[in-house]
């Protein structure tokens, strides 16, 4: 079934290249072959996490002349916020792969490399 559809497709492509009345429709400068890779998507720019905690910490530092023992509460809350943000980022990276109905570009490229487009018979 695939080979039948393949033959018809090849005839179509050759007609486009030869062209009607001697004028070809397509003038490809590269071979009409599919690549084994997918273009990368631009990663979405997030926003900075834990800014409020950081600003609270810095205000405390300014007040107490940068002595850390007096700002221990703020420091602890900052660390907890950072840990939570890191855990959130990890979870998000796992979830966004399933939604959207499409594979993310890295996984698609990996799959294509494992089952590449065969150009030659050797």
């Amino acid at each position, binding site marked *: 079934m695939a080979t039948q559809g393949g033959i018809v497709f090849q005839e179509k492509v050759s007609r486009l290249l030869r062209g009607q009345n001697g004028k070809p429709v397509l003038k490809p400068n590269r071979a009409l072959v599919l690549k084994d890779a997918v273009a990368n998507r631009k990663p979405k720019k997030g926003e900075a996490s834990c800014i409020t905690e950081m600003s609270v910490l810095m205000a405390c530092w*300014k007040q107490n002349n940068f002595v850390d023992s007096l700002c221990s509460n703020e420091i602890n809350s900052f660390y907890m916020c950072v840990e939570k943000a890191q855990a959130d980022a990890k979870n998000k990276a796992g979830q966004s792969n399933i939604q959207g109905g499409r594979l993310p570009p890295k996984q698609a490229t990996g799959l294509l490399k494992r089952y590449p487009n065969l150009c030659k018979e050797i």
Partner: protein
Amino acid sequence: MAASISGLLKPWTPRVFLVRWSRYNPYYLEPEVSKEAYSRPETELSAEEKEQRELKALRPIKAATSGVTSSVFDDPVISKFINMMMKHGNKVLAREIMTQTLENIKKKQVEKYHKASEGEREVIECNPYTIFHQALENCKPVVGLASIQKGGKYYQVPIPLTDNRRRFLAMKWMITECQDNKHRRTHMYEKLSQELLAAFGKEGNVIKKKYELHKMAEANRAYAHYRWW
């Protein structure tokens, strides 16, 4: 004589192969060196830990490095510090310096203890390991600076640091401080013990460096929004 000549004719293979620094297959698991991990009874373990144990029974495991031991005196922080001090692979010298440093700290503290009055004696800490850990904790920065490009210019942006990065920075500052700012006649262990005791008391050049980093971060707090993670 005949035996040795025929021995030379055989193809020679070394008896011991260097395995640890070759690249392991990711299938191999890390070894568990501490004895406490094995002495816990079955009932105490959670489901995950039981699964981990079963997995370790089936999977191949990497060889342990010669830097880790299962003894009670093995401390990963001190091992890391020794590795960072080591130059040209001379681990023996780095370990010697470390042990001399700890001994020196103990000597100084015991001297202080005996000279102090009854009331002050309880406050003086004599265990060099606790002094080392506390000094390192005091040297760790809370926020760091990252060079981020925005609109053609580079800005120093305050960012949160991971634990590993903070520990690395503290150790690096300590070692560079002791290597650079000392008289050529003072030994490394002497200078290290001085710096560690100063850091334990929240004074000294390393603590000053940490405060300068904090001040820079506080001065650049307006650029904190340039971060995107």
